[in-house]
């Protein structure tokens, strides 16, 4: 469903040119839960931003359900981000002066969903990510890092995207909450056929995915997944 073809992204920093994404190609079928691991600065976030149409590649293309992002005009790319993509940012990027519910409602507002419907869905999503109901109306800048991370995940799920790109979604969570988020993501890929690509340093998470990629100096390689026996039978 998502096809990455010879993707390159270079940055010019001073007189040096860096290539955090250097000729990356892979394919992911619909409903796959995949992970990307790699050292800090290896280009994981850069790759994710290209898949999510936040950034444009220096060369190469991303083809989603047969449609190439390179050929899309800006307005179509905006629509692609709004309808097809759920992005969980490494730094959450929530709107600090809005409440948790309002943040989750934002993508639905842009999608033109009625107010009552989006309020109800936003509350359901916040319950799913285990945010205390009494914190739903609280402003983002009065929530803890882990709480903000869960609001960011809820926001990414708001428009029922076909592809979720999550940059370290469990990085700020305790083990128990992290496990719950992992379970939530795998149930989405399993039950809703959502394609999910997570960047993670979390071994537990990486081992629960269907496929695992490693990014090293801009080069992507696939590694075998060592699935725990318990999980494999599930």
């Amino acid at each position, binding site marked *: 469903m998502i096809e990455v073809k010879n993707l390159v992204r270079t940055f010019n920093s001073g007189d040096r040119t860096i290539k955090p994404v250097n000729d990356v190609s892979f394919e992911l079928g619909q409903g796959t839960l995949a992970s990307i691991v790699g050292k800090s600065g290896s280009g994981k*976030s850069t790759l994710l*931003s290209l898949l*999510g*149409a*936040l*950034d444009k590649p220096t060369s190469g293309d991303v083809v989603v359900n047969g449609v190439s992002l390179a050929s899309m005009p800006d*307005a179509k790319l*905006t*629509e692609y*981000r*709004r*309808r097809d*993509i759920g*992005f969980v*940012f490494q*730094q959450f*990027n*929530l*709107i600090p*002066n*809005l409440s948790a519910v*309002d943040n989750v*409602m*934002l*993508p639905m*507002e*842009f*999608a033109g969903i009625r*107010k009552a419907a989006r309020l109800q869905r936003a509350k359901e999503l916040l319950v799913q990510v285990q945010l205390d109901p009494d914190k739903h109306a609280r402003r983002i800048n009065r929530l803890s890092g882990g709480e903000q991370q869960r609001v960011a995940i809820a*926001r990414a799920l708001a*428009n029922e995207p076909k592809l979720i790109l999550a940059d370290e979604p469990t990085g700020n969570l305790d083990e128990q909450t992290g496990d719950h988020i992992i379970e939530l993501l795998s149930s989405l890929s399993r039950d809703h056929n959502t394609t999910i690509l997570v960047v993670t340093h979390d071994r537990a998470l990486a081992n629960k995915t269907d496929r695992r990629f490693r990014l090293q100096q801009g080069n992507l390689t696939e590694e075998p997944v060592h699935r725990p026996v318990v999980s494999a039978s599930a």
Partner: protein
Amino acid sequence: MSVLARSVGNAFRNKVRTAAVVAVLAVAIGLALAMLVANQAVAAKVQELNASVGTVLTVNPAGGQGFEGGGEPLTAEQAATAAAVPNVSAVVGTQSLRLRNASEAAAQAASGTGAGPGGWQGGPGGQAAASLTTSLTAAIDAGTLGGRNQAVNGTTGTATQPDRSLPVTATGIGAEVDTTGKVLTITDGTGLGDYTAESSSALLGTTLAEKNSLTVGSTFTITDQTYTVAGLFDAGTTFGNNAVYVTLPTAQTLAGLPGELASMIVTVDSLENVASTKTALETALGTDKADVTQGQNLETALSSLGSVKNISLIAFIAALGTAGLIILLIMVMLVRERRREIGVLKAIGAPNRTIGLQFVLEALVLAALGSAVGAAIASFASGGIASALISTNSTSTTAAPTTGRGAAMAGAAWGPGLPGGGTFPRGEAGPFGGAAQLLTSVTASASPGVIAAGIGSVFGVAIIGALVPALLTARIRPIEVLRGE
């Protein structure tokens, strides 16, 4: 959470800054509104004056302008000549008299101060008007105005002057019109009937009649001759009502100048023909014989008001522009500051127009707050601003007492019928009282319509000011989310 709710929320995100921005905006908007109110008030006054002047031209003897006297008096033949000029619909001759209260005149003559201050004993260089005695007492006290004008006139006023009232103007008119050519508003009694024949009937201004406890049918005297009050009129101004009208031949006889006219009031058939008729009249009568003036020297007052109008208009535009600029700069700053947040909105799929609209609405919230405070400021300040503008301007006009500029304004205001023959000495209370009256009658009241129009233009300017920064948001790329703050 709608776009509007988000915009309102964003406007209050930094409360201290919002308060500061609103305060600065309020000053600019308040100034703009006050200037607009002043401008509208003056424009209304100018229109009113123009309408009152309308199609009337005044002919005075050449050289008589500014009450400096001189020149040959106008005659009945010239009136006939003027009437024959194309587009002239009516010519009314006038003769003016100055009436002094008999007992006051006697007292003053006895005290010996009468001839001293140039106040109203025949102006410098003025042709001494035959001052006639009357049983009437003027409705206006000389009071401060008289004293002030003597000072302005350049002569030394005596501190020991007895209290006295101003003279009363008596005007002989050839038709039932006042000295500006306007039909007299008779409030009681009747007119004088045949204005071309001598009669012992007179029309009195309401305040003058009241002061002397006269009603229709009462009698009074001018140089020991008895006149009957045929009617009362209301000229609308205090000075205008301190007057007596008699028929033209009566005034000519009283003045001892049969057949002579102090001035002619020429009515032109339409406003468009006024300018050409003025030229035609000048040619027909000869500029060496007659001065033809439009609007009884209202030009001075009008140009004074006109400059106030222009100043206030320019100030309105400048203040409005300042408000727009403040909004522009604030919004540019906000867009820069929220670059990353705009990136977030784009990353989660917000269309450019939604983001742009959000910023325009935020600017409008600031403009609305600024307008609310600014309107309050304007409603307190506009009266003061308008009168400050006008008094500055009228001072500069009247402070130039070269041949009757100040006096000309006076004529405009209260009784342009004072013809050139020097009937009224310059520096009379009339000129200044009249000018003040004219100009202070521009009341700058903050009418809701004008304020609404002003706030409308503030919003227009706010939208324009916010549009540039709003369009800048379109250039921000979603990848900004990954950049540090």
